[in-house]
C-alpha cells in the first residue's frame, strides 16, 4: 500500500491529512500491519484539548496495545465512532475509512515540521 503524497507523517507512525486548520489523523499502514488484527479502539472525547506528545487514542490488537500520540497541540473536533463497533476498519483502510480523529490545529505552522511521504518511507527503510 502506498503512502498518500498529500499526507504528513510522524516517526510514531501516525498520518495527518491537513485541511486548513483541521487535521485528520490515523495510523499508517505500517503501524496497522505491525499491530496485527485490531480489536479495540479507545477514542478521546470531542471538544477535549490535547497536548503534543500526549495520548490521543489507544489501539489494541491481539498482540499489543499501542498509543496514538498527539502530533501537535489542538482540540478534538471529530472522532470516528464507527471504529468502536468495527475496529477492523483500521486494518482494512488505514489511510482513509480507518481515520481516528480530526483535530483543530492550534498553530498551523507546526505541520511544516512533519515528515512528507518520501521522508516517512525512507524512515521506514532505515528502521
Amino acid at each position, binding site marked *: 500500500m502506498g503512502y498518500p503524497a498529500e499526507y504528513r507523517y510522524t516517526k510514531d507512525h501516525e498520518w495527518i491529512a491537513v485541511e486548513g486548520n483541521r487535521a485528520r489523523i490515523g495510523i499508517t499502514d505500517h503501524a496497522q500491519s*505491525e499491530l496485527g*488484527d485490531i*480489536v*479495540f479502539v479507545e477514542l478521546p472525547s470531542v471538544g477535549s484539548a490535547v497536548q503534543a506528545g500526549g495520548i490521543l487514542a489507544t489501539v489494541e490488537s*491481539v*498482540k*499489543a496495545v499501542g498509543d496514538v500520540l498527539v502530533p501537535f497541540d489542538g482540540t478534538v473536533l471529530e472522532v470516528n465512532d464507527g471504529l468502536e463497533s468495527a*475496529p*477492523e476498519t483500521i486494518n482494512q483502510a488505514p489511510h482513509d475509512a480507518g481515520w481516528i480523529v480530526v483535530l483543530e490545529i492550534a498553530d498551523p505552522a507546526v505541520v511544516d515540521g512533519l515528515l512528507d511521504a518520501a521522508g516517512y518511507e525512507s524512515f521506514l527503510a532505515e528502521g
Partner: protein
Amino acid sequence: MKTIFDHPQREGIGGLFPELDVPRIGAEGLIDRALLRSQEPRIPDLSEPTVVRHFTALSKLNYGVDDGFYPLGSCTMKHNPKVNETLARLPGLAGLHPLADPDLAQGTLAFLYELSDLLSRIAGMPGISLQPVAGAHGELTGLFLFRGYFEARGETERRRILLPDSAHGTNPASAAVAGFSVSEIQSNDAGMVDLDALDAELDETVAGIMLTVPNTLGIFEERIAEVTDRIHAAGGLCYFDGANLNAFIGRARPGDMGADVFHFNLHKTLSTPHGGGGPGAGPIAVSEPLVEFLPVPSIEQNGEAYALVWDRPNSIGSVHSFYGNVLVAVKAYAYLLQLGDEGLRAVSEDAVLNANYLQERLKKTYPLPYDRLCKHEFVLSGKGLAEGVCTLDIAKRLIDYGFHPPTVYFPLIVREALMIEPTETESRDGLDRFAEAMERIAAEAREAPELLLDAPHQAPVRRLDQTRAARDLVLTYPFDDREGGELA
C-alpha cells in the same frame, strides 16, 4: 468441548435429602418478592459420577509445570515442591478461622512474623506487609504508599510516575489505577534506562520511578544506583518490581540499590503455585520513610506473644481482608527454611546459568536483538525466520512438541518477541530437548511452513480465532432458551 450445561443426560438430583421434618415455608414468605428470581436456577441435573468424569476429563486437557517445560517469560513457572502442600494442609494452619482471637492464633502469627523477617533480610529493607495477594496488588499498595508519603509532606503535585519501556506491563496499569500519570523512558541500545532521557523528565511533578529488576529483556540495569540516586535527588521514590527476583535472590538486595518499595511474588520466586494453581501473594518490603504508611494490621512481637496492631494513624488502611493469603505464605516460608542462604544463592545461580545456556544455543538459530549476558530470561525474535511465518506460529508449533509456549509479543521493544525463562528447576537434559524442538521448528519454518501455520496439530483444540474472541466478546453462557433469547 462440552461444558457441564451441555450434557444431554438428565439424571435427576445427584444427592438424596432426608424427608422434611419441619414446616415448609416458601421463599416468598421470607424474602422481598422483588429480590426473588423468576426462573429456576440452571443447575445441571447430573449424577455424581457424571460430574466427576466431566471435570476429570477437563483436567486431562490441562498443561502445567507438573506436565512439562513451561518457559513463560517473566512468569517463573518453576517446580512447586510438594512438601509445601503437605505443610499448608496441617490442620493447625489450614483449620484456623480467620476471625479467631489472636490468642488462639499465636502459631500462625509467629510464622507470619518470621516470614516477614526473612523477606526483610532478603530485600535489605526494614518494613514488610504480607497483605497484597498478587504482584500487581503489591504494585498498587506500593503506589498508595507513595501517595501517603507525598500527601503527608504536602507534595500533592507529585503525580507522575516514570516508566522505562522495558518494565512489566502491569506497572503502567497499576500507576494509572493509583491515580498517577505515566511518562515513558526509552531504553538505550544496551536495553537499559537511558540516563539522559531520565534526566529530561525529572522535575517537581515526579512521584517516582518503577523499575523492573532485571528488566523484561532479562538485563540487569548496570547503572541502577545512578538511576535511584537521581530520583531521590529530585525528591521522588523508587519502586522495584520484584517479579524477577530469582535472578538475584541471595546475591544482591534491592534495599542496597535504592529501592523504596519492592514486591515479592511468592508464586514465582518462592515456589508457591502460579496461575490456576494459585492463589498468589505479593508481599511488599519498604524503606524506612514509608514504614509508617504500611497497611494495617501489622504483626508485632511483645515478649513471647504476637499481636495484630491496628493503631497506626498514618497507615493507608487495609488492602485485603484478614492477613492476605496466609496458606500461600506457609508454602513460601517452608521453601525459605528448606533452602536457607546457600540454597537461595543456588537458585539465582541456576536461574541465570540455565537462561544463558539456552540463550547461547538458541541465538545460533533465532535473532537475539539484545545480545549480552542475560539474567534469568532472554528475548529472541521470530522475525525473519522464514517468509510468512511469525512468532505466533512458532509458539503454536511448540505445543505439538509438548512444550508450553514462551511469552510472545512482549516486551514491545523487541519485534516478534519470544520471551523465554527456563527457570532454575529445569535439568540440562530438559533444556536440550526444548532447544532441539526450537531448532526443528526453525527448519520446518523454511522447509514446510504449513506445519507452523496450521499448528497446533496435536492439542485438544486447533488454532483458535483469537481476533474474533476479542472482537465479539461473549461473557455469559449463552443459554439458548433464555427469556428473550437475545443471547442465543
